[in-house]
C-alpha cells in the first residue's frame, strides 16, 4: 500500500499546474455551493420540521374591514375574548384536536434572589402547559407544570438563562425574581435546536425565549405584552397602556395578543381541521351580528408548513445565489473533467510505459484511484475550509444587518455547516473525479503499450 501511495503521490505531482488548476477550480465551486446551500438548508430546517403539517396557527380576524395583513406573519393573534370562546368550545368538545395551546410574548428582567448573577433582559413567553409537548421542547431538568398550576408563581428557564443565572447547574426548586416577585424554577429546557421563534409567528432567527411562565400567572400579574399586537382603529390610542399596564382593559378590547396553536392528529387531520374551521366560521358569523368580524377573511387556520414556505419565499436572493452556486458547481465539475482529460491525455504514454515496465492494468487503476482520491480530498478539504470561512462571513453580515441585536448563538445556528449537504457534495465530487479520471486511464491501459512508446 505504501508503494501504491508513493506512486500515486508521484502521479499527483506530475503536471502540477494542471493539478493546481483543477483543485482551485473545485475549491471555488465547493465553497460557494456549501456556503449558499447550507444557508438555504438551515433556513428551511426546524426542530419540529416533522410536524409541519400537524401544527396550525389559529386566528380570528377581528380587525377593521380594510386591514391589510400583508403576509402570513402579520396574521392577527386572538383577542382575550376570542381565546376564552375557543377554549370553551374545545373544552366542550365542539371540535376535536390532539391539543390546543395558547401563549403570548412577554419580556421582563430576570434576576436571582442573592444577587450572585447579573440580571438579564429575558424575552419570554407566557404559555399553557400544553405548549411544551406540542412544540416538543426538550427538558434538561425538571418538567412542565401540571394542569392545575396555570396561575402559580413558577417558571421554566431556557438553558441560556440557566447558564447565566445558575452556572448551568440544575436550578429546579431554586427561585428567580421577576418584577419583584419570586418564581420557583420547575424546569430547564434547551431551545438550541429551535432556530426560529415560531411560537409567536415572528419566526425570528435572532433570539428565542429565555423563559416560560404560566399564562394564567402572566395575565393575573399583568406581565407586559411585547411583539406584534394589532388593535382595531378605535382601540389604537389605548394600545400602549394595554401593552404595559391595563390588562383588565385589554381583556375586553379588540386587540390581539394571544397566539393559538392547534395540534391535529396525523390520522384524521382533515376531519379535525374541517371541524375546527366549521366552528371558526360559525363563531365569526354569530359574532358578526354584534358588529364584529367585518373583514372578508374572518379567520385563518395556517399550517406551520405554510409559514416555512413563506419564509422560503422571502429568501429570493439567497435562492438566486444558490442557483448560481449550483450552476457554478456544474461548471466546476465540467472544468474538472476537462482538466482531468487534459492531464490524462498525457498519461496514455505513461500508462503504456508503466505496463512496459511491468505494471498490470489493475495495479495502474489502483494507482490512479488513489491519485484521484488525493486530489479530490485536498479539494474537498480546502472547499470545506472555504465554506466554513464563507459561512462565518455571512454570519457576521447577518449580525451586522440585525444591528447586532440578535443573540449570536441563535444566529450562528443558521450559518453552521450542514454536514449532510456537505457529504452529498463531497460524494458528487468523488464520483465525478473518479469517473472522469479513470476512464482515460482504463482506455489507455487497454491498448498495446508499444503504440504509445514509439519514437
Amino acid at each position, binding site marked *: 500500500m505504501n508503494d501504491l501511495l508513493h506512486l500515486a503521490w508521484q502521479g499527483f505531482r506530475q503536471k502540477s499546474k494542471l493539478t493546481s488548476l483543477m483543485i482551485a477550480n473545485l475549491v471555488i465551486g465547493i465553497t460557494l455551493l456549501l456556503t449558499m446551500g447550507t444557508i438555504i438548508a438551515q433556513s428551511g430546517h426546524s426542530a419540529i420540521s416533522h410536524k409541519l403539517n400537524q401544527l396550525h396557527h389559529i386566528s380570528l380576524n377581528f380587525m377593521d374591514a380594510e386591514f391589510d395583513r400583508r403576509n402570513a406573519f402579520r396574521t392577527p393573534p386572538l383577542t382575550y375574548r376570542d381565546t376564552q370562546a375557543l377554549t370553551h368550545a374545545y373544552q366542550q368538545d365542539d371540535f376535536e384536536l390532539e391539543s390546543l395551546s395558547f401563549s403570548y410574548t412577554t419580556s421582563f428582567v430576570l434576576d436571582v434572589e442573592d444577587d450572585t448573577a447579573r440580571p438579564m433582559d429575558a424575552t419570554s413567553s407566557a404559555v399553557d402547559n400544553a405548549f411544551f409537548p406540542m412544540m416538543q421542547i426538550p427538558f434538561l431538568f425538571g418538567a412542565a407544570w401540571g394542569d392545575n398550576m396555570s396561575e402559580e408563581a413558577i417558571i421554566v428557564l431556557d438553558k441560556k438563562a440557566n447558564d447565566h443565572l445558575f452556572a448551568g447547574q440544575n436550578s429546579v426548586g431554586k427561585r428567580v425574581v421577576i418584577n419583584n416577585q419570586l418564581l420557583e424554577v420547575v424546569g430547564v429546557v434547551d431551545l438550541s435546536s429551535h432556530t426560529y421563534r415560531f411560537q409567536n409567528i415572528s419566526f425570528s432567527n435572532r433570539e428565542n425565549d429565555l423563559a416560560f411562565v404560566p399564562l394564567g400567572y402572566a395575565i393575573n400579574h399583568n406581565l407586559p405584552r411585547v411583539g406584534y399586537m394589532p388593535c382595531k382603529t378605535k382601540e389604537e390610542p389605548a394600545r400602549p397602556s394595554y401593552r404595559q399596564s391595563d390588562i383588565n382593559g385589554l381583556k375586553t378590547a379588540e386587540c390581539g395578543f394571544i397566539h393559538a396553536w392547534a395540534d391535529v392528529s396525523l390520522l384524521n387531520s382533515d376531519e379535525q381541521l374541517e371541524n375546527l374551521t366549521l366552528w371558526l366560521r360559525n363563531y365569526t358569523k354569530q359574532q358578526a351580528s354584534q358588529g364584529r368580524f367585518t373583514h372578508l377573511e374572518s379567520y385563518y387556520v395556517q399550517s406551520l408548513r405554510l409559514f416555512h414556505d413563506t419564509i422560503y419565499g422571502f429568501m429570493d436572493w439567497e435562492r438566486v445565489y444558490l442557483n448560481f452556486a449550483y450552476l457554478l458547481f456544474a461548471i466546476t465539475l465540467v472544468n474538472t473533467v476537462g482538466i482531468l482529460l487534459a492531464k490524462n491525455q498525457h498519461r496514455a504514454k505513461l500508462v503504456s510505459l508503466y*505496463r512496459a515496465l511491468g505494471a498490470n492494468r489493475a495495479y495502474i487503476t489502483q494507482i490512479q484511484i488513489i491519485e484521484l482520491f488525493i486530489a479530490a480530498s485536498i479539494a474537498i478539504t480546502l472547499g470545506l475550509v472555504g465554506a466554513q470561512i464563507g459561512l462565518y462571513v455571512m454570519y457576521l453580515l447577518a449580525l451586522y444587518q440585525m444591528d447586532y441585536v440578535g443573540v449570536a448563538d441563535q444566529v450562528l445556528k443558521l450559518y453552521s455547516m450542514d454536514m449532510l449537504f456537505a457529504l452529498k457534495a463531497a460524494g458528487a465530487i468523488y464520483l465525478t473525479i473518479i469517473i472522469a479520471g479513470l476512464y482515460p486511464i482504463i482506455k489507455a491501459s487497454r491498448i498495446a503499450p508499444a503504440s504509445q512508446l514509439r519514437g
Partner: protein
Amino acid sequence: MLKMNDISKIYRTDLVETHALSGVNLTVEEGEFIAVTGPSGSGKTTFLNITGLLETFEEGQYFLDGEDVSQLSDKHLSRLRNEKIGFIFQGFNLISDLNLYDNIEVPLIFRGLNKQTRKQRIEESLELVGLGSRANHFPAQLSGGQQQRVAIARALAGKPRFLLADEPTGNLDTMMARQVMALLQEINRQGTTLIMVTHDNELAQRAHRNIQILDGQLSDIAKSQLTDLAV
C-alpha cells in the same frame, strides 16, 4: 529460452491490411547478442515489441522460458515483462517529472521489492552507467547520451534475462552512441541476452549474430554481408 514459431502480425485499418511480420521463426539462446537490421518499415520494431510482450500477434507461437505467452493473462504477462525483460527505447521514455532515482525505482516498485533492496539496486545500476552522483537530477538536466544511460540503468536494475534495445543510439551523436554501445556490450558480456534493433550496420557488426528483416520476413545473415551493406 526464447522461441518463435510462425509468428505473424497484421495491422488493419478500414482500407488496408499491412503484414508487419509474416511467419517469423527464431530461437535465441541465453547470453546471445543479436542485432536486428532492416530498412525502415520492414517490421524491426514490431518484432522487438512482440518479443518484449508489448504487442500482440495474430498467428504463431511464442515461448518465453518455455511458457506460451499467447495463453497468459495480463497479470502474468506484466510479471514476465517486469522480471525477465528490460527495455531500452530509442526515445528513452523517462518520466520527466521524476528524478533519476525515482525513474529507476518505478519497475522495482512494480516488482514489490522492499525499499532497501530497491535503493541498493538503483545505486548499483546508476554506478554501472556512470551516473552515480546524479541520482537527484531530472532527465531534462541531462544530455541525450546520459538519458539513454539512465534508461539502460532502469532496464538493468531489475536484473532482466533479456535486454531489448530499440535503436538505442538512434537519438545520439557518434561519441555518445559509442559509449552506449560499449556499455551494452559489457552488459552482454556479463551474461544478459541482448536483442538490439538498429539500422546502423557498423553497430550491428558488434553483435554475435545478425538478423535481417525484409518485408516482415526474418533471416539470419552473415557479418560479411553486413560489411558489404555498410560499404
